[in-house]
């Protein structure tokens, strides 16, 4: 069955982009301030956000832009939504910060984020996703690998939709590209789910106008 990219979001250079439109940008203040302000800009009240590490915050924000406060996913049973995320730096950003705390008093709250797949857990909790999930650590964004894995996951009858993409952060350097894949027959305006299309969306800052 043909698959379509029905929504996509991008966070780069302290700018949140949804479907090619800038929804928030914040050059002033620290990177952590930018993340917290982005949540406010999206009009979301979710206290647990402030406890998350940077990777989880970025994944959370990128997914919020995709699914509009869970409305987009509400048509699917939780077990039929999959989540596939990849990055290059695993949980190194938090590992470093946690290591610093071990010199005085190790922080339990940081320790729980010293795994690269915690971002998946936070997104699943927020949106009630209970389907297949996978987290890959790759040298760089790899459109082909993401495409191939998501295609395989979507080939099962069980999975009807998949949130997928790239959530990478180390220090202030961040790079997020998330997208929603659905079975195309119900979404005639969807972009073709191909590795080339993913690469194009990733490179063009989410502003590509090449709809299929």
């Amino acid at each position: 069955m043909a698959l379509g990219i029905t929504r996509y979001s991008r966070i780069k250079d302290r700018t949140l982009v949804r479907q090619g439109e800038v929804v928030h940008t914040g050059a002033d203040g620290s990177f952590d301030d930018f993340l917290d302000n982005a949540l406010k800009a999206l009009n979301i009240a979710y206290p647990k956000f402030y406890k998350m590490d940077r990777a989880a915050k970025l994944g959370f924000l990128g997914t919020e832009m995709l699914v509009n406060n869970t409305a987009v996913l509400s048509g699917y049973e939780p077990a039929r939504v999959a989540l596939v995320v990849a990055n290059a730096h695993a949980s190194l950003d938090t590992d470093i910060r946690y290591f610093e705390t071990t010199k005085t008093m190790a922080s339990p709250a940081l320790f729980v984020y010293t795994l690269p797949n915690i971002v998946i857990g936070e997104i699943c909790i927020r949106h009630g996703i209970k389907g297949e999930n996978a987290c890959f650590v790759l040298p760089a964004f790899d459109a082909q690998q993401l495409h191939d894995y998501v295609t395989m996951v979507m080939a099962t009858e069980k999975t009807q939709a998949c949130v997928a993409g790239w959530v990478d952060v180390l220090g202030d350097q961040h790079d997020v590209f998330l997208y929603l894949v659905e079975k195309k027959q119900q979404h005639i305006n969807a972009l073709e789910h191909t590795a080339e299309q993913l690469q194009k969306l990733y490179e063009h800052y989410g502003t590509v106008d090449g709809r299929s």
Partner: protein
Amino acid sequence: MEQLMADLKKQIIEALNLKHLKPEDIGDDQALFVEGLGLDSIDALELIVLLQQHYNIKLANPQDGPQIFKSVRTIAEYIQANKPS
């Protein structure tokens, strides 16, 4: 006691990243866990670290945690009773 509770509220907000709250939002006797402030088990560990860092108090028996961390007032009472001289 009042000053200690005021200090604790600030320290809890800082240590637990409760950025959506101000000290005055936390009642002296408000439950900190579950239906109260909604803290979880990781927050409990951070509270143990907070006691050690700010007040040099090591929790002798972790089983006592639920009673000690019931509210800001119970934490303050525990600190007053156990602070090293």
